[in-house]
C-alpha cells in the first residue's frame, strides 16, 4: 500500500496514477478505504430506495405479504385519494412559506451577529439551542404552551393584552398548520443563520467594513455588495432547508396529529399516516417515490431560476 507515496512530491494537490495500465490497480487500492462507506450507503440508502420504488408497483397486504405485481394501481389509488389536492397545496405552502421566512430572518440575524457587541458569544450560544434540541421536544413544549385552557403562552398573550381570551391555536387545521409553520421557522433559524454567518466570514473584512461604514446607502450597499457575495452560502442554506422542511415530520405530527382529516397534512405526514394508521406500505411507497421526485424537481427549478452558483 505504501507504493503510492513514491510519486513525485512536486505535485501540489493530489496524486494521479501514471499510465493507463495501473488505473484498475489504483481503484483496487482505494477500495479498502472507501468500501465500508460504499457498503453502508448501498445497503441502507440506495437499496431501500430501490426496494421502495419496486414496492410501489406491488400489491402488499396489511401484514406485508406480497400478492404480486400491481401495475400502477398504487399510483392510481393516490390520484383517487380525495384529499390529495389539499395535501399538495399544503405541501407547497409549507415548504415555500417556511423556507422563505427562515432565510429572510436568518439574513438579518447573521448580519447582526457578524457585528461586534458585548455579549455576542452568549447570543450565538442561545441561538444554537433549538438546533441541538430535539425538534419533537421543542414542538411539544409549544403545543403545551398554546393549549387554550392550561397553556402558558396563551395565558401570556392574554395578560399582555395581545388576545382577549385564550385562542385554540392547535384545535383547528388552519391555525394549527400556521402554528406548525412558525415552529418550523424557529427550529430552522439556527442552522440557516450559522451557514449565512459562515458565508459572511468568507467575505474579506475590508469589504464588509466598507459596506458597514457607508451609512447613507447601507441598504443599497448590502444589496449590491454583500448579498451577491453571500450567494453560495445562501444557496446551500436554501437547498438544505428545502430538503429538511419538505421531509419534516415531528412538528406537524405533534401539532396537528390529533386533528381528524387531512386538512393539515403535507405529503410527508400523509406517508406516515399510510404506514402507521392503515399499514398501506404499497401506497406509502408510491407516495414516497412521488415525494422524492417533487423534492428533486423543486431543487432543480431552484437551481435553474435562482442560479445560486452564478459568479458575479
Amino acid at each position: 500500500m505504501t507504493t503510492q507515496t513514491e510519486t513525485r512530491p512536486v505535485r501540489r494537490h493530489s496524486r494521479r496514477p501514471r499510465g493507463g495500465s495501473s488505473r484498475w490497480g489504483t481503484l483496487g487500492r482505494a477500495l479498502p478505504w472507501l468500501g465500508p462507506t460504499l457498503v453502508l450507503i448501498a445497503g441502507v440508502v440506495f437499496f431501500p430506495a430501490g426496494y421502495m420504488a419496486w414496492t410501489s408497483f406491488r400489491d402488499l397486504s396489511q401484514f406485508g405479504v406480497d400478492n404480486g405485481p400491481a401495475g400502477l394501481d398504487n399510483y392510481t389509488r393516490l390520484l383517487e385519494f380525495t384529499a390529495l389536492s389539499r395535501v399538495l397545496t399544503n405541501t407547497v405552502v409549507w415548504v415555500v412559506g417556511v423556507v422563505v421566512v427562515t432565510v429572510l430572518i436568518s439574513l438579518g440575524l447573521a448580519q447582526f451577529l457578524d457585528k461586534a457587541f458585548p455579549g455576542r458569544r452568549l447570543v450565538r450560544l442561545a441561538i444554537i439551542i433549538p438546533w441541538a434540541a430535539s425538534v419533537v421536544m421543542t414542538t411539544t413544549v409549544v403545543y403545551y404552551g398554546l393549549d387554550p385552557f392550561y397553556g402558558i403562552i396563551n395565558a401570556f398573550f392574554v395578560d399582555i393584552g395581545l388576545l382577549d381570551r385564550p385562542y385554540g391555536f392547535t384545535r383547528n387545521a388552519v391555525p394549527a398548520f400556521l402554528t406548525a409553520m412558525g415552529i418550523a421557522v424557529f427550529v430552522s433559524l439556527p442552522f440557516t443563520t450559522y451557514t449565512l454567518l459562515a458565508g459572511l466570514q468568507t467575505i474579506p473584512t475590508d469589504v464588509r467594513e466598507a459596506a458597514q461604514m457607508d451609512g447613507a446607502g447601507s441598504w443599497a450597499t448590502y444589496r449590491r455588495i454583500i448579498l451577491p457575495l453571500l450567494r453560495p452560502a445562501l444557496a446551500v442554506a436554501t437547498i438544505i432547508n428545502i430538503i429538511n422542511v419538505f421531509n419534516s415530520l415531528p412538528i406537524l405530527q405533534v401539532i396537528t396529529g390529533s386533528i381528524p382529516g387531512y386538512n393539515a397534512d403535507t405529503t410527508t405526514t400523509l406517508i406516515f399516516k399510510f404506514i402507521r394508521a392503515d399499514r398501506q406500505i404499497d401506497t406509502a411507497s408510491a407516495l414516497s417515490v412521488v415525494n422524492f421526485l417533487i423534492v428533486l424537481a423543486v431543487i432543480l427549478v431552484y437551481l435553474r431560476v435562482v442560479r445560486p452558483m452564478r459568479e458575479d
Partner: protein
Amino acid sequence: MAATTTSPSADPAVLQVDGGRPARGSRGRRRVLMAVAGGVIALVFVLPYLVMLIGSFKSRAEILQVPPTYLPQEWLPSNYVDMWSTPETPLPYNLVSTIVISVCATLLVLAVAAPAAYYTARFRFPGRLVFLLLVLVTQMLQPTVLAAGLFRQFVTLGINDTWLAMILVNSAFNLSFAVWIMHSFFAAIPRELDEAAALDGASRLQILRRVTMPLVWPGVVTAIIFTFVACWNEFAASLVILTTAENQPLSVALTKFVGQYESAWQYVFGVSIVGIVPVVILFALIEKRLVAGLTAGAVK
C-alpha cells in the same frame, strides 16, 4: 453544488473578528443598543426551554390548572425521580436505547467515514468524484423519505424493531456530513508531512494514526458531535422501525406522555430537559468550529 475540495479556515481567531475596534461616542451607545437587542433575541430563543424547565417542577394538578401559573406554587424536584417509573413508557430502557444507538452509530460513522475522507483527500483515482457525489446525494435522501423502504427491508431481513436497524439507519444517513467535513480537514494538511513520515518507514495506517489524526482532530470532533446529536434526536425512522416500547429512543418515548385527554406534561418536560441539556453542552463546545465547518464543508 460546488463540490470542490477546499481548505477549512480552522483558525478560530480568524472567525472571531470581535471587539477589535474601540468604542467611543455614538459608537459606544450603538454597541449598548446592540447588546440589548442581542439580549432580546437570546431570550426569544431560550424562552421555550425556560418554559420546559419551569414546567418540569410543577405537580400534575398544577400543570393542568386553568388558568395556568407562571411559576410553580410548589416546586417538585421529585418529578425527576418519578418519571423513570411510569405506566406510559419504560423510561430507563428508552434512555439506554438512545445512548446505545447514538454511541454505536457515531462510532460506526467515524470508523467508516474517516478512511474514506482521508483517501479521497489524499489521492486521485478514477471514480473519486463519482464517489464524493454519491456521498453527497445521500444528504438529499432522508430516512423520512425512505421510511417505507427501510421498514420493508428490515422486515425482510428480520432485523426490524432492533437496535442494529436503527444504528445502521442513523450511521448511513449521517455519513455524508462526516465524510465531507473530515475530507476538507484532511485536504488542508500539507502532504509533505506524510511524505516525511513515509520516508521514515511509517506505514500508511501509522501515518494516519500518528501524524494526520492529531492535525485533523478538530474536524473529527465536529463530525462526532454533529453525528451524535443527529442520532440522539432522530425521530421519524425510529417511529416506524422500533415498535417495542423498550427499544424506542427518548424522542419517541416522550410522545407517550401526551395523551388525547390526560397528559403528564411535567414528565414530558423532565424527559426533555434530560434529553436536551447534554446535547446543548456538546453543541456549545463546537460552536466556534461550527462556523468553520460550515464554511469548509458546505459554503465553498
